[in-house]
């Protein structure tokens, strides 16, 4: 499956995994995080990790991972349980949003279909009203 076909949530998780792998590599090789004036050098990290630059500004998980790596002196890329819990909650909420979005799309389609059917039913009702009026007036059968 190409990246283009991934959903936003899946891409986010993929980017997070890449950054985690990159930081784990740094730790294993005992190399420091590239810095620029004391702050993470995003351009260098982006090139080295294969994750686009903007992800380091927009993906909350990636930002947290970098901050943790900086704070831990590069000792651990595993976030503490509190953060993991928050991430898990976010994932659950993301999934729920996705689920609701899908439900909404389904309901919209259903509502459109029902509206079409209602219009057809109302037209039919009008027709039967005319037929009933005729039958009441003349007693004659109207062949459908």
């Amino acid at each position, binding site marked *: 499956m190409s990246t283009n076909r991934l959903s936003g949530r899946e891409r986010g998780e993929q980017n997070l995994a890449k950054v985690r792998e990159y930081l784990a590599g740094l730790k294993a090789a005992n190399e420091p995080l590239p810095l620029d004036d004391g702050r993470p050098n995003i351009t260098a990290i982006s090139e080295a990790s294969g994750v686009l630059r903007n992800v380091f500004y927009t993906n909350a998980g990636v930002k947290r991972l970098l901050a943790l790596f900086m704070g831990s002196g590069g000792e651990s890329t595993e976030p503490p349980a509190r953060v993991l819990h928050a991430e898990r909650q976010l994932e659950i909420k993301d999934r729920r949003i996705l689920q609701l979005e899908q439900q909404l799309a389904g309901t919209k389609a259903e509502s459109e279909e029902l509206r079409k059917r209602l219009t057809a039913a109302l*037209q039919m009702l*009008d*027709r039967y009203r*005319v*037929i009933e009026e*005729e*039958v*009441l*007036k*003349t*007693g*004659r*059968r*109207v*062949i459908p």
Partner: protein
Amino acid sequence: MTISATVTISSVHPGPSGGAIFSGRDPAGTLLRFVADRDRIWRAPVVGEVWSLEGESRSHPRYGDQVYVHRATPVEPAGRLIVNFMLRHPAFDGLGIGKAKAARLWTEFGPDLHVVLSKGDAAKLSGVLSGDSAQKLVDAWRSVTEEARVVSFLDEHGFDLLLANKVRAVWPESTLAKLSDNPYRMLAFANWEKVDRAARSLGVTEHDPRRQVAAVEAFLYRRLDSKHTLTPRAMLLDGVRHQMQTRGLDGSSAAVEQARNEHAIVVTGGGYQPLGAAVMEKVVAGRLREILGGVPGSERNLFSTNLASITAEAIASFEKNKGLKLNARQRQAVEMAAQQPLGVLTGGAGTGKTAVLQVIHRIAEQARVSVFQMALSGRAAQRMREATARPASTIAAFLRTSERGAIEPDSEPLVIIDESSMLDLPLMYSIVRVIPVRARLLLVGDPYQLPPIGFGLVFHILAASQSIPRVELVEVHRQTQSSGIPQAAHQIRRGIVPPLPPFAGVHAGVSFIEADSSNVIEHILRVREKWAECGDVQILGVTRRGASGIRNINATLHAEASAYKPKLDGWEFAEGDPIIYVANDYQKELWNGSLGRIEKIVGSNGRQSLLCSLDGVEHEIRAEEFHRIELAYAITVHKSQGSQFNRVIVPIFESRLLDRTLIYTALTRGMQQVVFIGDRNAFDVAVAAPPHSHERQVGFSM
């Protein structure tokens, strides 16, 4: 001068009650103005349409030359007119076809555009339009042009063009295909001869099953026109043989079998019924049985406790307030209405039905039971309203209220219907279908009065049924016994010809003037002259047409009375003329049967209107409503039901409408004096013969 023209409509002013005034340009560019009455055109044209029109050109003092349309048919546009048509007709709105696209379509296809659209070839249009737009255009074209083809079909086969609307409303999709598939579909709207001729010209053979079924139905419809909903087998077989013009009865038997297999007719123990009437009778009987049997869990008495004392209290209170004493039958009637979910209250004019209703209202009010009381005619409803001092509506108004959903389906109202003898089967069906499941129903009427005008019979059967709670009031209150009217009425009810003395001026009672139709008017004038000082005199006619018909009487008396009075231009109305309103107008609270008088004619130059008093209230009747009023020096006995007059004149001659019930109804409209004028033999024969309602063959029973 007669004019025929094909024009593209440029402006339209639809009339408030059908018809239209419109303008259009002919191919030479000449602008013509048309006036089409509602019985000449089934719908107003639409700007952009092309119509073929025929009519009489006359000059109007204000609008100049106008063509008064005799015949109008829409034409399917062809050639370059298609482009104009698409740009101007509302059916093409919202399809995204503006001037540029329409022009491109013309450039691309030229005169072939008509062929492409008629074939519904949306794919071919895709060079100019998107697939979706092309399909929508093709659909819109099919919809608007099919009407022209339907009209052409109707025209070709000699059907009334005014049927176009109904035909399209009943078969909105593939109308022509349906009519070609089974031309006998048109039997819903037209007579057998016309439909059969059309079908045979379209290739239907003599023994085609479609023809067989239609012949059976057509004969049952003929019977329905004579008010019968049931036809015995032998009569049906013979009728079908005549209808199909076959020799033996074998063909008829096969046709009846075919109709039965296709469920086009219903077979009952007593004979055969057309489907619609059979269903209506079944529904009415079923609903009445439901009401009679009660719905489980529903409290069927108006009161859950202490019914006897509350009823007695209501009667005592009524008697004290009115200074009247209810007789035993009236008390029974009150108790029946309070205790029974379905009841029939019968009695001749003046037997005190109104007093019973007044007490029932009191009981219902104490029990907080809502009451809907109604009658068929506006005048009868008004009389009910006045007599009970409670709201009352026409049945039509009640049905409209129900359609609006204003009657709670879970409620348990008491529905009282006065003059129930006038209810035909379709009306009874319409009523029982809308009244709530737990409603109580009290039918009030006089089975000796006129039977319903429409087909079927319900009230007369209920009034004679042992399984329906019913009370007959017999003691006459309203008319003084000394007037002689109640005695004569009582004899006529039983088919006995009463002794009727010759007319002798002003006195109480009933008399007869023998006359022939050539001098009936003279006698009417003489009686009116004798009664000149009495006021409240009404002539009640049996028929509308003929020398003794109400039209002739009205024309003669109008001419005599209006000689020196202001008249309405172009109409036979003058100041002082008595009039009757012949439509229901819910906003004005005027009803079919409202009686009154033209007080003044106001305005001029074709903008006149009438100031009238109708049902005691002043109304302005404008030009568009003139067709809703008629002269009322004489009205039909049918229209008089529910009304009384001090003195009544009834011209009586042989007629298929004349029977005991009609004479009885006419007689009991009079309170002081009634004079019959005409053929004494016709009178005697009609009184002695069983009433027409007894001859009606119906499937309804309880």
